[in-house]
């Protein structure tokens, strides 16, 4: 279960002097994009359709009706159950990423509305320790389902995660069982659980609740898989085919229901929620 630190191939920086903050280079096609334009385009490259990773708060803005999202379970904070320390103390990593992102952990949970339809939701933020799932993430996912059960709401989870959080050892592994347990409890309700896979969804997250959605939607070209591509290459000693473990590849192999462009995602979710609601 690997964490992905960077994505895409980094091309040589061109001679263009890019003023900090106003412009951004597309990691896929290297086009220099005006940040305001990228924002208007929901963080999708206007030239090559590359979908930039979204911060959780931005995802909420893009998907939920304005001002409708109420965050829940914010009081659950990470415990350093193993007193873990590698090159850095786990406690320090948590503090750093908290300061960097303003988040208490890698997932934001709550209730929001999509065209007026109430939904319980959890949204991963890859910027917080690679979206890795430890106790806090597992608990928040579990509580999202429990909240949905008590309030009879559909669930939508937006994943973006390198997998289990190694710094929490066995406890992170057990979150896979915990979240799956809640999917199964929720399934008694006859209400939809929609799983949205965004770049990247791998390891302990893809091998638990994320691939158990009634409907599985992926954003274009998202990396989705169990093992990371580098681990696979090292294991099988051959290079991987073009597009391997990307959304389009998964669709082709029957692993997901559809690929949705970011600009269409909210409407697709609305239509699904109307269609498959009891």
């Amino acid at each position, binding site marked *: 279960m690997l964490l992905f630190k960077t994505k895409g191939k980094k091309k040589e920086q061109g001679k263009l002097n890019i003023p900090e903050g106003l412009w951004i280079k597309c990691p896929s096609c290297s086009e220099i994009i005006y940040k305001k334009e990228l924002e208007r385009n929901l963080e999708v490259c206007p030239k090559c359709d590359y979908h930039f990773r979204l911060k959780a708060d931005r995802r909420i803005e893009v998907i939920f009706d304005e001002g409708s999202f109420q965050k829940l379970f914010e009081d659950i904070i990470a415990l350093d159950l193993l007193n873990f320390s*590698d090159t850095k103390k786990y406690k320090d990593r948590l503090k750093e990423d908290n300061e960097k992102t303003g988040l208490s952990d890698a997932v934001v949970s709550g209730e929001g509305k999509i065209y007026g339809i109430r939904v319980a939701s959890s949204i991963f933020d890859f910027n917080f320790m690679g979206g890795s799932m430890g106790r806090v993430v597992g608990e928040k996912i579990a509580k999202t389902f429990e909240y949905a059960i008590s309030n009879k709401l559909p669930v939508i989870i937006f994943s973006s995660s390198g997998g*289990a959080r190694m710094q929490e050892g*066995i406890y992170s592994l057990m979150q896979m069982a915990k979240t799956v347990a809640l999917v199964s409890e929720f399934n008694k309700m006859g209400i939809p659980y929609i799983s949205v896979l965004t770049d990247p969804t791998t390891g302990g997250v893809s091998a638990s609740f994320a*691939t158990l959605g009634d409907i599985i939607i992926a954003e274009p070209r998202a990396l989705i898989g169990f093992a990371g591509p580098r*681990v*696979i290459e090292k*294991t099988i000693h051959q290079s991987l085919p073009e597009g391997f473990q990307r959304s389009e590849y998964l669709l082709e*192999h029957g692993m997901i229901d559809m690929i949705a462009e970011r600009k269409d995602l909210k409407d697709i979710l609305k239509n699904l929620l109307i269609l498959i609601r009891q």
Partner: protein
Amino acid sequence: MAVHSLEFERPIIELEQKIEELKAFNLGGFANVADEIENLEAKKEKLIKDVFKNINNWQITQLSRHPLRPYTLDYIGLMTENFIELHGDRLFMDDKAVVGGFCFIKGDGGKLNGGQKVLIIGHQKGRNTKDKMCRNFGMPNPEGYRKAQRLFKLAEKYFIPIVTLIDTPGAYPGLGAEERGQSEAIARTIYTLLNIKVPVLSIVIGEGGSGGALAFGTGNLVLMMEYSVYSVISPEGCASILYKDVSKTEDAANSLKLTARELSESNVIDGIIPEPLGGAHRNAPLAAEALRRAIIKNLEELKKYSGETLRDERIKKFRNIAK
């Protein structure tokens, strides 16, 4: 034997070889040599005790992967009768890294009478090179997990308790495995086993490696053999990814708290099955007997509950871990 020993076992092996030599020499039965053998045997026992008293997490990890350690089929051979292996996922192929079938666990004193009917599903490693390849080093493809799901449902249909034996470095990180949905296969197996309405007993017998192990790990009770390990990542993987230094494997093994003792102390698992002095590989029949007793005893307890209760309690157990 010497080829298959771990570094910290070497003094023990050397002493053992000396004893063997003396025994071969003493076919005539000289009393003074017999005394010497007895002397050395006592010394050996003390040596093993000393070595194992201060054994560290990395050494335990090595023991859990010991090339002579009993594997799933070894235990099945030693503690069951009438094992009938069932093959295939009915979708794509038969994955030999996972074995499963119905059998009787022997009753006390090796008797079939009073034996317990079970479905055993376990990871299977190979012993020699050819066998290892055939078993894919105990690393299942999606089909291994889908075969398990199929058999779990069969056991439920006949209300036969399930015993899972966990012994894998992890699910196979291969091209075909990804193509055929390794993630979904593991997720669905966890889902299926959590929901099965019969007693489920999960036992880590060797390596409990990550999601590939957890897929078989959601029993009503989870036990570990004394020198098995259970972890989100291998110490080597942890050292290379987090410590960025492969020489930090021992530190990683300590940090991960992956031993049966540590996991039992933190209540992540429900019990430890003691191994023979020096580890299961030094006396497989004795290890199998300890495993057999643990299975019989714990299933007796679980059999008191209805299928519904067992399912609900299992869901609750994993819901509440580190709540």
